[in-house]
């Protein structure tokens, strides 16, 4: 018996045989193919020569179509001019990280309008869910249901517009309480998410008790395309905390990297947007400091919100890049929240104006979270029902 095992391949391969046969086949039809190519080339040249006009017309129409459909989405403040001093060049040493880039890029700049799915979403929604995680007490059925509805709402929205969605678990939020730091998990989650999605441009933080009421509106058309007209940077129109409207060294020629809202009690961080940038990373790092917090933790009832207010009040590097959106653009309240201001239309969700998001902030403090969630879910479905569904689900 030889040493070669039975199942080892034989040293002879079929390749050469195959090759020979292939060549024979192709040789037969070679002249035909060449003729065909020549024929087609000639035909095409002829055709082009004859129909210059129609090709011109078609390309013109094509160009017009692309232009118009393009400008429909890119109406953005790409070059915003300011009265103030020219922004100083932040790029100190060439080749340093991209934080110094001064252009305002709308977040969808690289996204094709026609792609249905993209691996690197430019906008990522961060949804904070499962607060407490049922550790200290049982989560009841209604809480489970609220969570389900809220997550489903964001999921559908993100899918519809090609955004990313990441659901962050707040089970361990109680761990922060021994340092009087409840609420600070938000900052840690943001820092972690910024690392997780290095290619995203903007992050939209949403608390669990929120409902996107107008899923058809994209964030681009609703927020980013009209930032200039929407945003208040100087507390001119609305200053519930009576912060100093003007402090030295604030430079409004910096671009905005942190978009928040204010409710009747000051800054509201239930729904805000933060840009993925070096500045944001630094802010998230500087936000909590033991020296500041040690002095104030008894007074700062809303913890990270109050800390941000204090930083905003005194530090121009932070003030230079924060913009305030009107509450109702991304964070409208139900009548139960800020109820002492019930006449003030700046706070409350309006069905008529089709406000974008409802934030049932503080509904677990003596209000009916489940009832509110049910009400707004039904309303959302009613408002966004298509005309043809009436035939099928009257």
């Amino acid at each position: 018996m030889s040493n070669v095992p039975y199942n080892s391949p034989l040293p002879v391969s079929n390749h050469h045989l195959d090759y020979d046969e292939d060549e024979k086949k192709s040789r037969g039809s070679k002249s035909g193919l060449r003729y065909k190519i020549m024929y087609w080339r000639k035909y095409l040249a002829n055709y082009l020569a004859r129909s210059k006009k129609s090709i011109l017309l078609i390309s013109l129409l094509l160009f017009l179509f692309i232009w118009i459909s393009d400008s429909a989405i890119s109406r953005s403040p790409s070059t915003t001019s300011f009265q103030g001093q020219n922004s100083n060049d932040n790029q100190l040493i060439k080749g340093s990280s991209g934080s110094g880039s001064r252009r305002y890029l709308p977040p969808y700049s690289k996204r094709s309008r026609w792609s249905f799915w993209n691996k690197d979403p430019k906008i990522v929604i961060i949804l904070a869910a499962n607060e407490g995680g049922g550790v200290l007490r049982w989560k009841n059925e209604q809480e489970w249901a609220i969570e389900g509805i809220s997550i489903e709402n964001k999921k559908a929205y993100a899918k519809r517009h090609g955004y990313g969605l990441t659901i962050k678990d707040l089970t361990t939020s109680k761990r922060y309480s021994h340092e009087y730091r409840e609420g600070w998990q938000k900052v840690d989650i943001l820092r972690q998410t910024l690392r997780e999605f290095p290619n995203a441009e903007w992050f939209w933080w949403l608390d669990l008790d929120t409902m996107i009421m107008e899923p058809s509106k994209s964030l681009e058309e609703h927020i980013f395309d009209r930032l200039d007209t929407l945003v208040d940077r100087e507390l001119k129109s609305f200053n519930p905390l009576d912060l100093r409207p003007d402090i030295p060294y604030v430079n409004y020629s910096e671009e905005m990297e942190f978009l928040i809202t204010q409710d009747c009690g000051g800054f509201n961080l239930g729904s805000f947007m933060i840009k993925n940038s070096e500045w944001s990373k630094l802010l998230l790092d500087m936000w909590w400091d033991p020296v500041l917090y040690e002095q104030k933790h008894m007074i700062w009832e809303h913890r990270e919100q109050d800390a941000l207010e204090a930083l905003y009040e005194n530090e121009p590097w932070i003030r230079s890049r924060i913009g305030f959106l009107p509450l109702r653009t991304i964070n409208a309240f139900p009548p139960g929240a800020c109820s002492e201001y019930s006449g003030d239309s700046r706070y409350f969700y309006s069905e008529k104006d089709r406000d974008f998001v409802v934030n049932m902030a503080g509904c677990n403090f003596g209000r009916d979270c489940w009832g509110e969630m049910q009400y707004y879910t039904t309303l959302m479905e009613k408002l966004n029902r298509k005309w043809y569904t009436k035939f099928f689900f009257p």
Partner: protein
Amino acid sequence: MAIKPRTKGKTSRSVGSQWFNSLSFKQNKYGTCKFLSIIAVFVYILYFFSSRFYPNSRSTSVSYPPSHGLYINEIPASRRLIYPQVEHVPVLKQVTVRGLYITRLEIDGSKRLVLKPEENAMTDEEKKKTTDQIILVKSSFLDHGKLVYRRNNDAPEVVVVTLIDFENYDLETIIQVVQNRVDYAQKHQYGVYIRYIQEFLPVLENQNLAQSYEFIKPLMIRAAMHAFPTAKYIHFVDQDALLMNLDLSLQKYLLDPKILDLALQKNVPVVANSNIKTYNHFESSLAKIIIPHDANGNIDTSSFVVANDFHGQALIDYLSDPLLRNYNWGPEGDKLSYAIGHILQWHPTLLGKTAIVIPKVLASQYDASMDQEGESGSGDVYHYNEGDLAASFKGCRSRGTCASEISHMYNKIKRT
């Protein structure tokens, strides 16, 4: 079979052109071509111009007020070298700080100096009319803080920043300090930004100069960043320090990443006895703050460099935050050094941009006893040796020897 093109291509007419011709362009060939090309050119022009004007027409609605410093109305400076008229020091000593500002009685009975941000600078006409020397000195003191450098063609890359104190120092020492900075800056086309410490007193909550002295440094640096918005680096030099080697340019001698790498303190505690250590792998090209350690391994604030971007501004603004400034940093020692040490230990993002370097490169400690023994100095990295960039006389206030040490060393500087 029907889809296959006919072999006799010459006579066949394509479906497209048949349809097109039936559209009514039945005139001659050249007419339609001309017509279409005119439309094409028109569309192109429309596109070109619309992309030109569209963004501008939208953004005109937005206008924000320009950035301003402590004063809202500012004066453009004509020279890169901004320093006060030091010859006024004797008069300022007479007037005292109380005479320079308005004093306001607070509800709790304390008196505070107040700064008026809306105040306008004294015009030249008013100056001509005034004969009262004291009013002139006062206005020149108050207007000095309104100077900002806004010329773009001759903007310095580095600005040397120093505080001077008209109460505790005599005219001779102040002139030497100012002259030293100006000599250095002129050699390298740098800017100079010098102001009186007393100019910042009204900003502070604790208006005791001796207690708040260190925290005026960040206020001053911020003012310099605003006065020279295009400068890339601010080099702060304490008034108890002299730039000894005027030939060393900061860019070549320190800011070059390769050279900065050599001076870095890697993997050492950020402040003495700290668990937090400086990074072993530090990207020198990304350094935004360059600050030396002293001989004890603590942060030395007598001479340091801060980049004029948001990293540098973040550190400076944080240090100027009243909550941080008024924290109980301990009864003695350099409070600013403790505060910076604290920030660097708690905020890794900032530590990652901070180069902690050996004192020799920025602020060598001058030791009079060593100086007398031999002219060459001790040779270690903490004490001043001939050829070092700067000599720091830290601690001379408690020794009471600032004036003598400054003038002794000032005469040793080689000016060519």
